[in-house]
Protein backbone atom coordinates (compact mmCIF):
# COMPACT_ATOMS: atom_id res chain seq x y z
CA UNK A 1 0.00 0.00 0.00
CA UNK A 2 2.78 2.31 1.02
CA UNK A 3 4.80 1.58 -2.10
CA UNK A 4 1.70 2.06 -4.23
CA UNK A 5 1.08 5.56 -2.88
CA UNK A 6 4.77 6.30 -3.29
CA UNK A 7 4.45 5.20 -6.91
CA UNK A 8 1.45 7.45 -7.33
CA UNK A 9 3.47 10.30 -5.88
CA UNK A 10 6.21 9.70 -8.41
CA UNK A 11 3.57 9.43 -11.10
CA UNK A 12 2.72 13.02 -10.35
CA UNK A 13 6.28 14.22 -10.00
CA UNK A 14 7.78 12.65 -13.12
CA UNK A 15 5.53 14.42 -15.66
CA UNK A 16 6.09 17.67 -13.80
CA UNK A 17 9.86 17.21 -13.97
CA UNK A 18 9.55 16.31 -17.65
CA UNK A 19 7.47 19.43 -18.26
CA UNK A 20 9.96 21.66 -16.47
CA UNK A 21 12.70 20.01 -18.51
CA UNK A 22 10.90 20.63 -21.79
CA UNK A 23 10.07 24.24 -20.95
CA UNK A 24 13.68 24.66 -19.83
CA UNK A 25 15.01 23.41 -23.17
CA UNK A 26 12.67 25.79 -24.93
CA UNK A 27 13.95 28.70 -22.85
CA UNK A 28 17.60 27.75 -23.16
CA UNK A 29 18.20 30.17 -26.02
CA UNK A 30 21.73 30.26 -27.43
CA UNK A 31 21.23 33.63 -29.15
CA UNK A 32 18.24 35.68 -30.33
CA UNK A 33 19.32 34.35 -33.75
CA UNK A 34 18.98 30.78 -32.48
CA UNK A 35 16.22 29.32 -34.65
CA UNK A 36 15.64 26.01 -32.89
CA UNK A 37 11.90 25.60 -32.41
CA UNK A 38 9.72 22.55 -31.76
CA UNK A 39 8.95 20.54 -34.89
CA UNK A 40 5.37 21.87 -35.02
CA UNK A 41 6.77 25.33 -35.84
CA UNK A 42 8.94 24.21 -38.77
CA UNK A 43 8.15 23.92 -42.51
CA UNK A 44 4.94 25.86 -42.00
CA UNK A 45 4.48 26.74 -45.68
CA UNK A 46 4.60 23.10 -46.70
CA UNK A 47 2.28 22.10 -43.86
CA UNK A 48 -0.22 24.86 -44.64
CA UNK A 49 -0.20 24.06 -48.36
CA UNK A 50 -0.91 20.41 -47.49
CA UNK A 51 -3.89 21.57 -45.40
CA UNK A 52 -5.06 23.69 -48.32
CA UNK A 53 -4.69 20.79 -50.77
CA UNK A 54 -6.87 18.70 -48.44
CA UNK A 55 -9.78 21.10 -49.05
CA UNK A 56 -9.73 21.51 -52.84
CA UNK A 57 -11.80 24.08 -54.68
CA UNK A 58 -13.93 22.55 -57.45
CA UNK A 59 -12.85 23.69 -60.94
CA UNK A 60 -14.75 26.76 -62.07
CA UNK A 61 -15.65 27.83 -58.53
CA UNK A 62 -15.05 31.39 -57.40
CA UNK A 63 -11.91 31.71 -55.26
CA UNK A 64 -11.96 33.84 -52.15
CA UNK A 65 -8.96 34.55 -49.90
CA UNK A 66 -7.89 37.10 -47.32
CA UNK A 67 -4.95 39.36 -48.11
CA UNK A 68 -2.94 41.14 -45.42
CA UNK A 69 0.67 41.96 -44.60
CA UNK A 70 3.21 43.26 -42.12
CA UNK A 71 2.29 41.43 -38.93
CA UNK A 72 5.60 42.61 -37.44
CA UNK A 73 5.25 43.24 -33.69
CA UNK A 74 1.44 43.58 -33.88
CA UNK A 75 0.44 40.68 -31.65
CA UNK A 76 -2.62 42.33 -30.12
CA UNK A 77 -3.91 43.10 -33.60
CA UNK A 78 -3.12 39.55 -34.79
CA UNK A 79 -5.56 38.15 -32.26
CA UNK A 80 -8.30 40.53 -33.39
CA UNK A 81 -7.58 39.77 -37.05
CA UNK A 82 -7.88 36.02 -36.50
CA UNK A 83 -11.20 36.46 -34.70
CA UNK A 84 -12.52 38.57 -37.57
CA UNK A 85 -11.27 36.37 -40.42
CA UNK A 86 -12.78 33.31 -38.75
CA UNK A 87 -16.20 34.99 -39.23
CA UNK A 88 -15.72 35.35 -43.00
CA UNK A 89 -17.70 32.80 -45.01
CA UNK A 90 -16.22 31.03 -48.02
CA UNK A 91 -12.59 32.03 -47.48
CA UNK A 92 -10.06 29.42 -48.64
CA UNK A 93 -6.86 30.78 -47.07
CA UNK A 94 -5.05 33.87 -45.86
CA UNK A 95 -1.89 35.49 -47.25
CA UNK A 96 0.58 37.56 -45.21
CA UNK A 97 2.58 39.71 -47.65
CA UNK A 98 5.85 39.67 -45.70
CA UNK A 99 7.38 41.26 -42.61
CA UNK A 100 6.09 38.47 -40.44
CA UNK A 101 8.72 39.55 -37.91
CA UNK A 102 10.17 42.94 -37.02
CA UNK A 103 13.73 41.87 -36.16
CA UNK A 104 14.18 38.70 -38.24
CA UNK A 105 14.06 36.56 -35.11
CA UNK A 106 12.72 33.02 -34.90
CA UNK A 107 10.84 33.73 -31.70
CA UNK A 108 8.82 36.46 -33.41
CA UNK A 109 7.92 34.16 -36.31
CA UNK A 110 6.80 31.58 -33.77
CA UNK A 111 4.74 34.19 -31.87
CA UNK A 112 2.98 35.15 -35.12
CA UNK A 113 2.32 31.52 -35.96
CA UNK A 114 0.90 30.93 -32.50
CA UNK A 115 -1.73 33.54 -33.40
CA UNK A 116 -2.33 32.62 -37.04
CA UNK A 117 -2.55 28.87 -36.44
CA UNK A 118 -5.88 29.66 -34.74
CA UNK A 119 -7.31 30.68 -38.11
CA UNK A 120 -9.99 28.31 -39.35
CA UNK A 121 -8.22 28.35 -42.74
CA UNK A 122 -4.55 27.74 -43.65
CA UNK A 123 -2.26 30.70 -44.23
CA UNK A 124 0.78 31.31 -46.42
CA UNK A 125 3.49 33.92 -46.24
CA UNK A 126 6.12 35.58 -48.40
CA UNK A 127 9.37 36.90 -46.94
CA UNK A 128 9.67 40.62 -46.13
CA UNK A 129 12.69 42.86 -45.59
CA UNK A 130 12.36 42.72 -41.80
CA UNK A 131 12.40 38.92 -41.97
CA UNK A 132 15.84 39.17 -43.62
CA UNK A 133 17.55 41.20 -40.90
CA UNK A 134 20.45 39.45 -39.17
CA UNK A 135 20.03 35.71 -39.65
CA UNK A 136 16.33 36.07 -40.44
CA UNK A 137 16.67 34.43 -43.83
CA UNK A 138 17.78 31.19 -42.19
CA UNK A 139 15.12 31.49 -39.48
CA UNK A 140 12.41 32.06 -42.08
CA UNK A 141 13.57 29.11 -44.15
CA UNK A 142 13.59 26.88 -41.09
CA UNK A 143 10.21 28.01 -39.76
CA UNK A 144 8.27 28.84 -42.94
CA UNK A 145 10.20 27.43 -45.89
CA UNK A 146 11.20 28.55 -49.37
CA UNK A 147 11.74 32.23 -50.17
CA UNK A 148 10.45 31.75 -53.74
CA UNK A 149 7.67 29.24 -54.34
CA UNK A 150 4.43 28.70 -56.21
CA UNK A 151 1.29 26.64 -55.84
CA UNK A 152 -1.95 26.11 -57.72
CA UNK A 153 -5.28 26.31 -55.95
CA UNK A 154 -8.50 25.90 -57.86
CA UNK A 155 -7.92 27.59 -61.20
CA UNK A 156 -5.30 30.01 -59.93
CA UNK A 157 -1.52 29.77 -59.79
CA UNK A 158 0.08 31.75 -56.98
CA UNK A 159 3.73 32.72 -57.28
CA UNK A 160 5.32 34.15 -54.13
CA UNK A 161 8.82 35.56 -54.21
CA UNK A 162 11.46 37.56 -52.40
CA UNK A 163 11.68 41.12 -53.80
CA UNK A 164 13.57 42.63 -50.84
CA UNK A 165 16.47 43.83 -52.97
CA UNK A 166 17.90 46.25 -50.42
CA UNK A 167 18.54 43.41 -47.96
CA UNK A 168 20.95 41.97 -50.55
CA UNK A 169 22.51 45.39 -51.18
CA UNK A 170 20.88 45.40 -54.64
CA UNK A 171 23.17 42.65 -55.91
CA UNK A 172 20.75 41.57 -58.63
CA UNK A 173 19.63 38.42 -56.82
CA UNK A 174 16.19 39.56 -55.58
CA UNK A 175 13.81 39.19 -57.31
CA UNK A 176 15.33 36.09 -58.86
CA UNK A 177 14.33 36.76 -62.47
CA UNK A 178 15.80 33.48 -63.68
CA UNK A 179 13.38 31.65 -61.41
CA UNK A 180 10.41 33.97 -61.92
CA UNK A 181 10.22 34.04 -65.73
CA UNK A 182 9.47 30.32 -66.26
CA UNK A 183 6.99 30.47 -63.35
CA UNK A 184 5.08 33.22 -65.13
CA UNK A 185 5.03 31.53 -68.53
CA UNK A 186 3.95 28.11 -67.27
CA UNK A 187 0.66 28.20 -65.37
CA UNK A 188 0.91 24.55 -64.25
CA UNK A 189 -2.58 23.89 -65.62
CA UNK A 190 -4.19 26.91 -63.96
CA UNK A 191 -6.40 29.37 -65.79
CA UNK A 192 -5.04 32.58 -64.27
CA UNK A 193 -2.24 33.70 -62.00
CA UNK A 194 -1.43 35.97 -59.10
CA UNK A 195 2.06 37.16 -58.09
CA UNK A 196 2.74 38.11 -54.46
CA UNK A 197 5.83 39.70 -52.96
CA UNK A 198 6.68 42.09 -50.15
CA UNK A 199 8.39 45.14 -51.65
CA UNK A 200 6.47 46.60 -54.63
CA UNK A 201 8.49 47.58 -57.71
CA UNK A 202 7.45 51.21 -57.18
CA UNK A 203 9.35 51.29 -53.86
CA UNK A 204 12.94 52.49 -53.25
CA UNK A 205 13.72 49.17 -51.55
CA UNK A 206 13.20 47.28 -54.83
CA UNK A 207 16.43 46.57 -56.75
CA UNK A 208 16.47 49.45 -59.28
CA UNK A 209 18.31 47.38 -61.88
CA UNK A 210 15.57 44.74 -61.77
CA UNK A 211 12.57 47.06 -61.71
CA UNK A 212 12.11 47.32 -65.49
CA UNK A 213 12.62 43.58 -66.16
CA UNK A 214 10.21 42.68 -63.33
CA UNK A 215 7.49 45.05 -64.51
CA UNK A 216 7.96 43.84 -68.08
CA UNK A 217 7.73 40.18 -67.02
CA UNK A 218 4.44 40.89 -65.25
CA UNK A 219 3.14 42.77 -68.29
CA UNK A 220 3.89 39.71 -70.41
CA UNK A 221 2.51 37.17 -67.91
CA UNK A 222 -0.53 35.36 -69.35
CA UNK A 223 -3.70 35.46 -67.24
CA UNK A 224 -2.21 37.73 -64.56
CA UNK A 225 -5.04 38.95 -62.32
CA UNK A 226 -2.82 41.31 -60.30
CA UNK A 227 0.44 41.63 -58.45
CA UNK A 228 0.18 41.97 -54.64
CA UNK A 229 2.53 43.56 -52.10
CA UNK A 230 2.89 44.67 -48.51
CA UNK A 231 5.63 46.95 -47.14
CA UNK A 232 3.76 50.26 -47.59
CA UNK A 233 1.44 49.71 -44.60
CA UNK A 234 -1.38 51.15 -46.67
CA UNK A 235 -4.26 49.93 -48.79
CA UNK A 236 -4.07 50.70 -52.49
CA UNK A 237 -5.18 49.27 -55.82
CA UNK A 238 -3.39 51.02 -58.67
CA UNK A 239 -1.92 50.66 -62.14
CA UNK A 240 1.27 52.70 -61.56
CA UNK A 241 2.83 51.85 -64.94
CA UNK A 242 -0.39 52.37 -66.97
CA UNK A 243 0.25 49.05 -68.64
CA UNK A 244 -2.91 47.24 -67.60
CA UNK A 245 -1.19 45.48 -64.70
CA UNK A 246 -2.95 46.03 -61.37
CA UNK A 247 -0.87 46.32 -58.17
CA UNK A 248 -2.61 45.70 -54.87
CA UNK A 249 -1.03 46.83 -51.60
CA UNK A 250 -2.12 45.50 -48.23
CA UNK A 251 -2.71 47.23 -44.94
CA UNK A 252 -0.41 46.26 -42.10
CA UNK A 253 -1.92 44.45 -39.09
CA UNK A 254 -1.64 47.78 -37.25
CA UNK A 255 -4.12 49.42 -39.65
CA UNK A 256 -6.77 46.97 -38.41
CA UNK A 257 -7.98 46.29 -41.94
CA UNK A 258 -7.59 43.34 -44.27
CA UNK A 259 -8.88 42.57 -47.76
CA UNK A 260 -11.26 39.85 -48.82
CA UNK A 261 -10.27 39.10 -52.39
CA UNK A 262 -12.63 37.29 -54.74
CA UNK A 263 -11.36 36.01 -58.10
CA UNK A 264 -13.37 34.39 -60.88
CA UNK A 265 -13.55 34.03 -64.68
CA UNK A 266 -10.41 34.73 -66.65
CA UNK A 267 -9.11 37.68 -64.62
CA UNK A 268 -12.11 39.20 -62.86
CA UNK A 269 -11.72 40.20 -59.25
CA UNK A 270 -13.40 42.11 -56.47
CA UNK A 271 -11.68 43.40 -53.35
CA UNK A 272 -13.50 44.26 -50.15
CA UNK A 273 -11.63 46.06 -47.38
CA UNK A 274 -12.74 44.81 -43.97
CA UNK A 275 -12.17 46.63 -40.66
CA UNK A 276 -11.46 44.54 -37.57
Amino acid at each position, binding site marked *: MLSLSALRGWGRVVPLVALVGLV*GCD*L*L*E*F*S*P*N*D*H*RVPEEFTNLTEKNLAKLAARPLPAGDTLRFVFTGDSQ*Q*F*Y*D*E*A*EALVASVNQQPGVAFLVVAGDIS*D*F*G*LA*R*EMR*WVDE*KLRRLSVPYVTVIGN*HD*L*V*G*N*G*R*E*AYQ*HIYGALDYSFVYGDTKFTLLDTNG*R*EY*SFDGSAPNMGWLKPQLTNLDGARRQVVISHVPPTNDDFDPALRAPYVQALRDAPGLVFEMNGHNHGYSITQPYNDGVTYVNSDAFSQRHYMVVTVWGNRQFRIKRVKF
Partner: protein
Amino acid sequence: MKTHLLPALLLAAGGSHAATPPDTAATALPRAARSERPWYRPTHLALQTGGGLGMVAAGAGYQFSKNRLETDILIGYVPRRYAGSALTLASLKFMYSPFRLRVAEKVQVLPLTVGAYFSYTHGTLNDELKGQYSSDYYWFSTDTRYGPLVGGRVTYLAAPVAATGQPRKLSFYYELGSNDLYLASYLTNRNGGLRFGQLLTLALGVKADF
Protein backbone atom coordinates in the same frame (compact mmCIF):
# COMPACT_ATOMS: atom_id res chain seq x y z
CA MET B 1 59.89 41.06 -3.31
CA LYS B 2 56.74 39.06 -3.44
CA THR B 3 58.42 35.73 -2.77
CA HIS B 4 59.93 37.10 0.43
CA LEU B 5 56.83 38.83 1.60
CA LEU B 6 54.56 35.86 1.38
CA PRO B 7 56.39 33.56 3.88
CA ALA B 8 56.67 36.49 6.24
CA LEU B 9 52.96 37.04 6.10
CA LEU B 10 52.32 33.35 6.52
CA LEU B 11 54.41 33.35 9.69
CA ALA B 12 52.68 36.41 10.99
CA ALA B 13 49.32 34.84 10.30
CA GLY B 14 50.25 31.63 12.07
CA GLY B 15 50.03 33.18 15.51
CA SER B 16 46.66 34.81 15.36
CA HIS B 17 43.54 32.85 14.47
CA ALA B 18 41.75 34.90 11.85
CA ALA B 19 37.96 34.92 11.82
CA THR B 20 36.44 32.84 9.04
CA PRO B 21 35.17 35.08 6.29
CA PRO B 22 31.50 34.48 5.60
CA ASP B 23 32.01 32.72 2.29
CA THR B 24 35.04 30.61 3.00
CA ALA B 25 34.94 27.03 4.16
CA ALA B 26 37.77 27.01 6.64
CA THR B 27 40.19 29.38 8.31
CA ALA B 28 41.70 31.64 5.74
CA LEU B 29 44.74 33.81 5.85
CA PRO B 30 44.35 37.45 6.75
CA ARG B 31 43.45 39.89 4.07
CA ALA B 32 47.03 40.95 3.58
CA ALA B 33 47.94 37.55 2.13
CA ARG B 34 45.14 37.66 -0.36
CA SER B 35 45.85 41.20 -1.40
CA GLU B 36 48.97 39.82 -2.98
CA ARG B 37 46.87 39.05 -6.07
CA PRO B 38 47.54 41.44 -8.90
CA TRP B 39 44.57 43.75 -9.39
CA TYR B 40 43.80 42.38 -12.82
CA ARG B 41 43.61 38.75 -11.76
CA PRO B 42 40.00 37.53 -12.12
CA THR B 43 38.37 36.11 -9.02
CA HIS B 44 36.48 33.44 -10.88
CA LEU B 45 36.00 31.56 -14.12
CA ALA B 46 32.55 30.96 -15.59
CA LEU B 47 31.02 28.57 -18.09
CA GLN B 48 27.38 28.78 -19.16
CA THR B 49 24.87 27.75 -21.78
CA GLY B 50 21.92 29.77 -23.03
CA GLY B 51 20.73 33.15 -21.88
CA GLY B 52 21.17 34.36 -25.47
CA LEU B 53 24.94 34.51 -24.91
CA GLY B 54 25.98 31.30 -26.64
CA MET B 55 25.45 27.58 -26.78
CA VAL B 56 28.66 27.60 -24.79
CA ALA B 57 30.00 30.77 -23.22
CA ALA B 58 33.16 30.88 -21.15
CA GLY B 59 34.98 33.65 -19.41
CA ALA B 60 36.16 35.20 -16.22
CA GLY B 61 34.95 37.75 -13.76
CA TYR B 62 35.61 40.00 -10.83
CA GLN B 63 33.85 40.52 -7.52
CA PHE B 64 33.52 43.76 -5.62
CA SER B 65 31.86 45.10 -2.54
CA LYS B 66 32.28 42.01 -0.33
CA ASN B 67 31.46 39.75 -3.27
CA ARG B 68 27.97 41.14 -3.62
CA LEU B 69 28.69 42.84 -6.91
CA GLU B 70 30.34 41.02 -9.74
CA THR B 71 31.00 41.37 -13.41
CA ASP B 72 31.65 38.58 -15.90
CA ILE B 73 33.18 38.80 -19.33
CA LEU B 74 32.15 35.90 -21.56
CA ILE B 75 32.91 34.73 -25.06
CA GLY B 76 30.14 32.59 -26.50
CA TYR B 77 29.72 30.41 -29.51
CA VAL B 78 26.71 29.16 -31.48
CA PRO B 79 27.24 26.61 -34.25
CA ARG B 80 25.84 27.30 -37.70
CA ARG B 81 23.21 24.57 -37.52
CA TYR B 82 21.33 26.35 -34.74
CA ALA B 83 21.46 29.93 -36.01
CA GLY B 84 22.11 29.82 -39.75
CA SER B 85 25.71 30.99 -39.38
CA ALA B 86 28.38 30.36 -36.75
CA LEU B 87 28.13 33.16 -34.21
CA THR B 88 30.67 34.47 -31.74
CA LEU B 89 29.26 36.58 -28.91
CA ALA B 90 31.16 38.87 -26.60
CA SER B 91 29.21 39.62 -23.45
CA LEU B 92 29.51 41.67 -20.33
CA LYS B 93 27.34 40.87 -17.31
CA PHE B 94 26.80 42.90 -14.15
CA MET B 95 25.21 41.19 -11.16
CA TYR B 96 24.19 42.04 -7.63
CA SER B 97 23.51 39.29 -5.09
CA PRO B 98 22.35 40.92 -1.84
CA PHE B 99 21.71 37.78 0.24
CA ARG B 100 23.67 34.67 1.10
CA LEU B 101 22.37 31.79 3.16
CA ARG B 102 24.68 29.21 4.72
CA VAL B 103 22.50 26.12 4.41
CA ALA B 104 25.20 23.63 5.36
CA GLU B 105 28.78 23.75 6.54
CA LYS B 106 30.08 23.86 3.01
CA VAL B 107 27.02 24.96 1.08
CA GLN B 108 25.88 28.49 0.53
CA VAL B 109 22.79 29.62 -1.37
CA LEU B 110 22.48 32.97 -3.10
CA PRO B 111 18.71 33.08 -3.52
CA LEU B 112 18.63 36.21 -5.65
CA THR B 113 20.89 37.67 -8.26
CA VAL B 114 19.70 40.63 -10.29
CA GLY B 115 21.65 42.10 -13.12
CA ALA B 116 21.97 43.17 -16.69
CA TYR B 117 23.98 42.13 -19.68
CA PHE B 118 25.23 43.62 -22.87
CA SER B 119 26.28 41.47 -25.82
CA TYR B 120 27.74 41.90 -29.25
CA THR B 121 27.30 39.21 -31.88
CA HIS B 122 29.83 38.65 -34.62
CA GLY B 123 29.03 36.55 -37.67
CA THR B 124 25.41 37.38 -38.51
CA LEU B 125 24.57 37.12 -42.19
CA ASN B 126 22.91 40.48 -42.85
CA ASP B 127 24.02 43.10 -40.37
CA GLU B 128 23.77 46.47 -42.03
CA LEU B 129 26.61 47.08 -44.40
CA LYS B 130 27.74 50.65 -44.80
CA GLY B 131 25.43 52.39 -47.24
CA GLN B 132 22.93 49.52 -47.32
CA TYR B 133 20.26 51.59 -45.60
CA SER B 134 19.52 55.21 -44.92
CA SER B 135 20.15 56.11 -41.29
CA ASP B 136 17.44 54.86 -38.91
CA TYR B 137 15.99 52.56 -41.56
CA TYR B 138 15.86 50.01 -38.76
CA TRP B 139 15.59 51.59 -35.33
CA PHE B 140 17.29 48.66 -33.57
CA SER B 141 20.76 47.21 -33.79
CA THR B 142 21.13 43.78 -35.37
CA ASP B 143 24.16 42.70 -33.35
CA THR B 144 24.06 44.62 -30.09
CA ARG B 145 21.69 43.31 -27.43
CA TYR B 146 21.12 44.17 -23.82
CA GLY B 147 18.69 42.98 -21.24
CA PRO B 148 17.92 42.23 -17.62
CA LEU B 149 18.53 38.99 -15.79
CA VAL B 150 17.47 37.49 -12.50
CA GLY B 151 18.67 34.24 -11.03
CA GLY B 152 20.06 32.27 -8.15
CA ARG B 153 23.04 30.19 -7.18
CA VAL B 154 24.20 27.29 -5.04
CA THR B 155 27.83 27.39 -3.94
CA TYR B 156 30.02 24.62 -2.61
CA LEU B 157 32.71 26.05 -0.37
CA ALA B 158 35.89 24.05 -0.78
CA ALA B 159 38.91 24.20 1.47
CA PRO B 160 41.08 27.22 0.67
CA VAL B 161 44.35 26.81 -1.15
CA ALA B 162 46.72 25.72 1.61
CA ALA B 163 49.69 27.82 0.58
CA THR B 164 47.94 31.10 -0.02
CA GLY B 165 44.61 30.90 1.73
CA GLN B 166 42.76 31.74 -1.46
CA PRO B 167 39.12 30.77 -0.96
CA ARG B 168 37.86 28.26 -3.50
CA LYS B 169 34.23 27.96 -4.43
CA LEU B 170 32.24 26.07 -7.01
CA SER B 171 28.84 27.51 -7.89
CA PHE B 172 25.97 26.39 -10.07
CA TYR B 173 23.66 29.13 -11.25
CA TYR B 174 20.58 29.79 -13.30
CA GLU B 175 19.43 33.04 -14.79
CA LEU B 176 16.15 34.03 -16.39
CA GLY B 177 16.61 36.91 -18.78
CA SER B 178 15.24 38.71 -21.78
CA ASN B 179 16.51 41.24 -24.28
CA ASP B 180 15.64 44.72 -25.53
CA LEU B 181 13.81 43.42 -28.62
CA TYR B 182 11.62 40.92 -26.78
CA LEU B 183 10.82 43.55 -24.16
CA ALA B 184 9.99 46.11 -26.86
CA SER B 185 7.60 43.59 -28.42
CA TYR B 186 5.94 43.08 -25.05
CA LEU B 187 5.63 46.77 -24.30
CA THR B 188 3.90 47.54 -27.60
CA ASN B 189 1.29 44.81 -27.00
CA ARG B 190 -0.39 45.74 -23.77
CA ASN B 191 -3.66 43.95 -24.50
CA GLY B 192 -2.32 40.47 -23.89
CA GLY B 193 -0.88 39.84 -27.36
CA LEU B 194 2.24 38.44 -25.70
CA ARG B 195 2.57 36.75 -22.33
CA PHE B 196 5.53 37.71 -20.16
CA GLY B 197 6.69 34.09 -20.10
CA GLN B 198 7.17 34.21 -23.88
CA LEU B 199 9.97 36.76 -23.45
CA LEU B 200 12.13 34.69 -21.15
CA THR B 201 15.40 32.98 -21.80
CA LEU B 202 17.21 30.65 -19.45
CA ALA B 203 20.93 30.36 -18.77
CA LEU B 204 22.56 27.58 -16.74
CA GLY B 205 26.13 27.85 -15.66
CA VAL B 206 28.94 27.01 -13.36
CA LYS B 207 31.39 29.37 -11.72
CA ALA B 208 34.67 28.53 -10.03
CA ASP B 209 36.37 30.94 -7.64
CA PHE B 210 40.07 30.32 -7.38
